[in-house]
C-alpha cells in the first residue's frame, strides 16, 4: 500500500528526472567525466540545475571558493523549502537526515502538497518518495553518461541543453508572477558585471550585486508586494 502509493505519486517526477538526468550524464561524459562521476555526483550532490552548473565549473577550472559561492546562490531557495518543512518532518525519527538531504524541488512539491490517504504511513511515504526520486535521478544520469560514451555522432553543441534548461525555468518564473523586478535585476546586474569584469570573473561580482540590489529594494515600499508573488520553482 505504502510503496504503491508513493510510486504512483512519484511517476511525474520519474519522467522528468530520467530525461534531465540523462541530459546531465551525456553532458558530463562529453566533457570527459565518465559513468562513475555521474553516479557519485547524483548520489552525493543530488541537485539538478547545480549539477549542470558543476559540469561547467569543473571543465572551466573554477576555484573551490567560486564553486561554494555559486552553490550558495543557485541553491539558496532550499533554505525556504527547509523552513516550510520543519513541522512536517518533525517526528520522522531516523529517516530525518535522509529526508533533509533529499529535499529537492520536485520532492518538495510531492511532500508539501496534500494529505496522504488513510492507511498510508506519512513518514514512510515521505521516505519512499524521496528515495524513489533520487533513484530515478541516479539511474537517468548514469544511463546518460553510458549512452554518451557510446555516441558516435558529433556532440558539439550539446552544452546548449544547460542553457535551454535555464531559459525554460526563466520563462516559467516569468509567467508565474506579475512582478518581474527580481528576474530583471538578475539579468541586468549580470550583464553589467560581465561587461566590466569579463566572462571569466563576473560571477562573484554579479552575486554580490544581485544580493545588494535586492536588499536595497527591500527598503522601498513598492516592492513589498513582490514578496508575495508566487513561489519560484526550479
Amino acid at each position, binding site marked *: 500500500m505504502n510503496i504503491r502509493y508513493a510510486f504512483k505519486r512519484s511517476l511525474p517526477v520519474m519522467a*522528468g528526472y530520467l530525461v534531465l538526468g540523462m541530459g546531465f550524464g551525456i553532458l558530463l561524459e562529453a566533457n*570527459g*567525466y565518465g559513468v562513475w562521476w555521474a553516479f557519485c*555526483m547524483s548520489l552525493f*550532490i*543530488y541537485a539538478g540545475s547545480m549539477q549542470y*552548473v558543476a559540469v561547467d565549473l*569543473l571543465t572551466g577550472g573554477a576555484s573551490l571558493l567560486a564553486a*561554494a559561492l555559486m*552553490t*550558495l*546562490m543557485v*541553491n*539558496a*531557495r532550499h*533554505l525556504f523549502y*527547509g*523552513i516550510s518543512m*520543519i513541522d512536517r518532518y518533525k517526528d520522522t525519527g531516523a529517516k*530525518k537526515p535522509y529526508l*533533509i*538531504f533529499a*529535499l529537492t524541488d520536485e520532492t518538495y512539491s510531492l511532500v508539501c502538497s496534500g494529505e496522504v490517504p488513510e492507511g498510508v504511513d506519512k513518514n514512510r511515504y515521505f521516505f519512499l518518495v524521496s528515495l524513489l526520486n533520487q533513484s530515478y535521478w541516479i539511474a537517468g544520469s548514469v544511463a546518460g553518461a553510458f549512452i554518451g560514451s557510446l555516441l558516435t555522432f*558529433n556532440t*558539439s*553543441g*550539446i552544452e*546548449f541543453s*544547460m*542553457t*535551454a*534548461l*535555464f*531559459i*525554460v525555468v*526563466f*520563462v*516559467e*518564473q516569468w*509567467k508565474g*508572477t506579475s512582478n518581474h523586478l*527580481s*528576474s530583471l535585476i*538578475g*539579468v541586468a546586474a*549580470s*550583464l553589467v558585471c*560581465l561587461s566590466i569584469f569579463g*566572462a571569466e570573473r563576473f*560571477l562573484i561580482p*554579479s*552575486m554580490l550585486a*544581485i*544580493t545588494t540590489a*535586492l*536588499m536595497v529594494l*527591500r527598503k522601498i515600499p513598492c516592492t513589498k508586494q*513582490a514578496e508575495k508573488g508566487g*513561489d*519560484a520553482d526550479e
Partner: protein
Amino acid sequence: MNNLYSGLMVAVIAIVTLLLRALPFLFFGGKKKTPAFVQYLSKMLPYAIIGMLVVYCLRGVKVWSAPYGLPELLGTGTVVFLHLWKRNTLLSIALGTVVYMVSVQFVFSI
C-alpha cells in the same frame, strides 16, 4: 582536469548544498522565528539567480564576430517560443538543443 581537484569540487558543492537544506532544521527547528530578511531573500533570489544563470550560460557568445551569436539566438528563440506555446519542459529543452547543435555543426560551421 585532475581527479583530486574534481573530487574536491564535487565535495564542496555537495557540502554547501546539504548545509542549505539542513540549516533551517538546525536553526529554526525550535519555536524561533525565521528572520524576515532570510525569508525575503529565499523568495526573491531564485528569480534573479536564474536570470544570472542564463547570462552565465551565454557568457562566451561573441556578438561582434562571425557567426555573431546567431546559433545562440536561434536556440534561445526556439526554446522561448516552444515553451510559451506548448509549455512542455522536456520538449523545449530537447528541440532547442537540437536546433542549436544543427546550427553550430552544419549551418554556421565555417
